[in-house]
């Protein structure tokens, strides 16, 4: 059975893949008590859903990475990012949020 007509790729227009609502929150710095609880509380307050957490020690730094779904978040991405940056400064850590596409593009084809 033949499949449907092949997708037409318009050569003059590169189309972005459908946009996901997932962001990667990264925390880098010295390990200390309360990192996960502080960051989770901040995300929970915005109703951003944590999908996965991993943490490890890499090159003398503590690294925590969260994948977060912000589809139903009450705060838009920019605001969430600012809040996370501020929380990082408060705790003496580097906390950032980036759209997952940047990692997808760099490490997956």
């Amino acid at each position, binding site marked *: 059975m033949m499949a449907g007509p092949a997708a037409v790729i318009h050569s003059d227009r*590169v189309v972005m893949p459908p946009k996901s609502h997932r962001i*990667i929150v990264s925390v880098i710095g010295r390990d200390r008590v309360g990192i996960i609880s502080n960051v989770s509380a901040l995300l929970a307050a915005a109703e951003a859903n944590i999908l996965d957490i*991993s943490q490890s020690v890499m090159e003398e730094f503590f690294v925590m990475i969260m994948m977060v779904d912000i589809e139903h978040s009450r705060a838009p*991405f*920019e605001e969430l990012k600012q809040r996370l940056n501020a929380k990082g400064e408060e705790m003496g850590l580097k906390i*950032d949020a*980036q759209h997952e596409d940047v990692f997808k*593009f760099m*490490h997956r084809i």
Partner: protein
Amino acid sequence: MSLSRFSPQEIVETIRMVQMENLDIRTITMGISLRDCAHPDLRVSAQKAYDKICRLAEHLVASGESIAAEYGVPVINKRISVTPIALVAESSAADSYVLMAEYLDRAAKEVGVNFLGGFSALVHKGMTRGDEALLASIPEALAVTERVCASVNVGTTRAGINMDAVAQMGRIILDTARRTADRNGLGCAKLVVFCNAVDDNPFMAGAFHGIGEPECVINVGVSGPGAVLRAVEKDGQTDFGTLATTIKRTAFKITRMGELVGRAASEKLGVPFGIVDLSLAPTPAQGDSVARIVEAMGLDRIGTHGSTAALALLNDAVKKGGAMASSYVGGLSGAFIPVSEDIGMIEAAGMGALTFDKLEAMTCVCSVGLDMVAIPGDTPAETIAAIIADEAAIGMINRKTTAVRVIPAPGKKPGDMVEFGGLLGRAPVMAVHTESSRAFIARGGRIPAPLQALNN
């Protein structure tokens, strides 16, 4: 969906490249056709150009900033390239296009871009009245504007080299330096003389929107000498095959970032995506140096024997890695070796390890040419023209883009340091040959196209 899609190592690698190794999107450049802005009255033409740029690029800077925030990757410059102005302004009766440059400068300021390229003419085989008017306007235009960049293409592999234009560019460069003497000849930092210029280069000062390009297009220039340096250092003493592979892998990742940003910008602005230019473009910042990569391959200083081979390997590996990473690669793509913008080049030139002649040899295998080189202020116009002729000959014979961006720094002698500030950096004045090239340049006419161009 699990995080296992990305390992922590991968995520940390990306973050480290950006935060510690100066990986960035060097420029998002919007190419805008001004072909519909021609008019018998230059002022009307300039106004049309101003209006069109302000309309199409209104959201360029804001989009660039929002992309930077979203992906956590700095977008350093937002820029504009336009149709070579000689083509646009020629319909007018004006003899000087300085007025047009002033309108372009105002448009650049209005939309908030730091440079606008395309005060340009393509004269590799000869000049029209419009080309002559444009060339004559360059020194004043670069002195009275802040953000406008000029370029002139004097040769191609298929046409040969227009030596009349080369001779004239020698005089124009000197005049431009003189008119900006209070700023160490800064005007010359905004002027590039090309052989085999490309239509879709997003990097300044040589960007223009070529005649085969669409109405409006987004081109992206990525840069990451620091990330490549780190990868080469981490690898240690490997053989050349392994070294090339390491560079290719890093270039691939860097270029993917450019591809992502290019697509995102294209979508946000509703403008087609043109190309990613995967050039390693150094800045004066520590660790953001192409020279340091060459040195990390095992050379004491860039400029010593082996530098040309090292640069050839680097340039080729960057192209190979990048070409696999993007659907459309274009522009200049390779490793830039500007002197004033690279801490390793500045040091090597300052201590005499890197001479003008070795630099010229290295341009045979780098992505462009003699870039941001300060030379003595009393260098004769014929010598500058001869420097351009040499560089154009390299490009013509090797079917590659070459360029000359030299600054005859007024009142400066070899060994003096010249400050340009910001991304343009600072450069030690390099000695050039003092034996005259006058009679050679005075011949005039064209150097015929080389045989290898007649292959169809």
